[in-house]
């Protein structure tokens, strides 16, 4: 078995986030009804920073370790996303207090739920087994359902929470059925083992290579020897031939469930309603961190379990699925966002479009036969997207917590002159989302599209389609510039129609400043983060093709419990 000391150490980030959540719940009990809860936000920020610190410094970097008998992986990929989720959580905790006070929902549970959902995200990206992955996904989702309905006296918020919950629970059921079918086809829920089974047994079953004795066939024989119905063994198990449709159906259901979570067209219908109704700081968190966690976990699941050998493309068509999802999301998201009058709704459709850009990276990886180094642009993209999105919703919540709702474009009229720095920050976030230099979004988009072009350069069938995807992506993102610039037009070129009460800036201002500075810094000096993302993706553990070994600085220690299949 593994090293118990390392096991405990490896879940320390998760434990720190959970402990701070529980600490805040306890402190909340001793609060007077009318007392301000702002200091709980401070404790939450400390919790997030400590979580990131623990993840970065207590765990060895440059190595990949399996913990708890192969249930989770602690590697560079887990660590870089831990820091991203903690950053997103801390910024949300800084933005939220004044908004919650103004909307009569100043309760400490908000920060506890934030910490719990971030803990779920960390575990979700670290998951090496579908059991852990599922439980972590639910830890995250259930906390966010509650956050979406947090201002419960608002009709809109309760509706948003309900809709988000129904669609989210539906997606969870689909995900589970997919996992069950994959488990049935492969006999395991371990991601690396599934990858091996898909790469070996299932593929051989598909090509009718009966000589290749699969574990499934062995299982079938064992089952027959135990007196089970041999004809059933023929249905499911023999040489894996019957397992192929099961595995394909299961993996497809898993992909559909992920598409729900990251709001990719055609599974995006919940997003506009949930984003419009939920409290604005929560929307920033949902649009940025929850989507980033979904994409990051999908990338790990796909890279380790699905993109192995022949299962990744061509024969079973994963590339085509990602291609269709990416194309639809980019086109529909950008075009529908053009006609929205509500900024939160516009940003919701824009986040659908961003899911499309992210899926372009998946398509490129799949096209290059699962060469995941193609996906390093994705990590950078997620950082740029998360920071700019939280910043944009931070500006909206800050304006919305000054006695005037900030939902429609008209509510931004003249804000650029009245609050020059806030206007400048909002402009930076919009430029980043539109992908205009020098903001970070430009580099992210550039890296993702570059990986797709590089993948198509290798030639082969379908490389023209990949170029088509990139060209379409660039064209619709040019169309998208219209609605991002519309925000800037309202900030600077319209006269203010009403008086806004003066209020202290509070911690929200610092969160907005941090987002703006980071967006510019990542846009001007992207080198360090680009290197870290390449390293993080290269160090992803459990891969079947040895990509890890080429790019890691330190050799892979032998993990206890399970074998890391290379």
């Amino acid at each position: 078995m593994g090293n118990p000391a390392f096991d405990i150490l490896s879940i320390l980030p998760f434990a720190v986030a959970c402990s701070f959540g529980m600490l805040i719940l306890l402190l909340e009990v001793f609060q007077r009804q009318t007392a301000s809860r702002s200091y709980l936000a401070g404790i939450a920020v400390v919790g997030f920073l400590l979580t990131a610190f623990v993840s970065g410094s207590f765990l060895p970097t440059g190595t990949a370790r399996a913990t708890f008998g192969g249930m989770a992986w602690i590697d560079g990929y887990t660590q870089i996303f831990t820091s991203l989720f903690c950053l997103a959580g801390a910024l949300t905790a800084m933005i939220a207090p004044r908004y919650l006070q103004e909307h009569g929902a100043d309760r400490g549970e908000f920060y506890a739920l934030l910490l719990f959902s971030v803990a779920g995200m960390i575990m979700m990206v670290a998951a090496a087994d579908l059991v852990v992955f599922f439980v972590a996904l639910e830890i995250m989702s259930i906390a966010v359902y509650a956050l979406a309905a947090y201002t419960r006296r608002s009709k809109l918020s309760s509706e948003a929470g309900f809709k988000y919950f129904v669609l989210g629970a539906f997606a969870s059921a689909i995900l589970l059925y997919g996992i069950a079918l994959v488990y049935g086809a492969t006999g395991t829920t371990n991601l690396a083992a599934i990858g091996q089974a898909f790469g070996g047994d299932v593929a051989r079953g598909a090509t009718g290579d009966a000589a290749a004795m699969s574990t499934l066939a062995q299982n079938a024989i064992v089952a027959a020897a135990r007196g089970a119905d041999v004809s059933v063994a023929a249905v499911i198990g023999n040489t894996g031939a019957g397992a192929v449709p099961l595995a394909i159906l299961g993996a497809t259901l898993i992909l559909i469930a992920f598409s729900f979570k990251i709001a990719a067209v055609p599974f995006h219908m919940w997003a506009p309603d949930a984003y419009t109704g939920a409290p604005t700081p929560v929307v920033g968190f949902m649009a940025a961190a929850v989507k980033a966690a979904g994409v990051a976990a999908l990338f790990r699941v796909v890279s380790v379990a699905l993109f192995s050998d022949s299962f990744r493309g061509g024969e079973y068509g994963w590339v085509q699925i990602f291609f269709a999802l990416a194309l639809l999301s980019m086109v529909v998201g950008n075009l529908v966002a053009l006609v929205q009058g509500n900024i939160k709704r516009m940003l919701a459709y824009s986040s659908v479009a961003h899911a499309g850009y992210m899926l372009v990276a998946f398509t490129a990886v799949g096209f290059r036969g699962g060469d995941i180094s193609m996906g390093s642009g994705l990590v950078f993209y997620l950082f740029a997207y998360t920071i700019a999105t939280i910043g944009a919703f931070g500006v909206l919540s800050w304006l919305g917590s000054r006695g005037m709702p900030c939902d429609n474009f008209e509510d931004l009229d003249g804000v650029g002159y009245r609050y020059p720095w806030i206007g400048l920050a909002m402009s930076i976030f919009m430029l980043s989302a539109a992908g205009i230099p020098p903001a970070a979004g430009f580099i992210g988009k550039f890296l993702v599209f570059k990986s797709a072009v590089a993948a198509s350069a290798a030639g082969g069938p379908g490389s023209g389609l990949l170029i088509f995807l990139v060209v379409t992506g660039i064209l619709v993102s040019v169309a998208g510039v219209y609605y991002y610039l519309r925000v800037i037009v309202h900030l600077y070129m319209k006269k203010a129609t009403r008086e806004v009460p003066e209020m202290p800036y509070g911690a929200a201002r610092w969160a907005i400043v941090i987002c703006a500075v980071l967006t510019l810094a990542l846009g001007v000096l992207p080198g360090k983060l680009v290197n870290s993302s390449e390293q993080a993706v290269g160090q992803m553990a459990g891969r079947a093709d040895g990509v890890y070994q080429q790019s890691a600085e330190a050799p892979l220690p032998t993990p206890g419990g399970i074998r890391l299949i290379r």
Partner: protein
Amino acid sequence: MFGIPIGWYLTLSAALFVLGAIGLVLRRNAIVMFMCIEIMLNAVNLTFIAFARYHNDLGGHLFVFMVIAVAAAEAGIGLALIVNVYRHRRSLNVDDINLMQG
């Protein structure tokens, strides 16, 4: 499998899952929709148990316990959200929950 082939278990659970999904789309009462989700989760549990028995592997049984625990947590939060919606609307018909559109 005590003489009953695994195919029957899989057919039953697939039928339950599809019934749950259809119910979720067609029924208009929030509580009934929630029950449909629970039916889907239990169909999944049946699938897991059947495959676990078939593969002679404990992993599937373990997964079922996790699903049951998570379903309980989801029921808690889901019913709270439904109560909250009911307080605002005095109705559980999801067609009435239509403040946001477009």
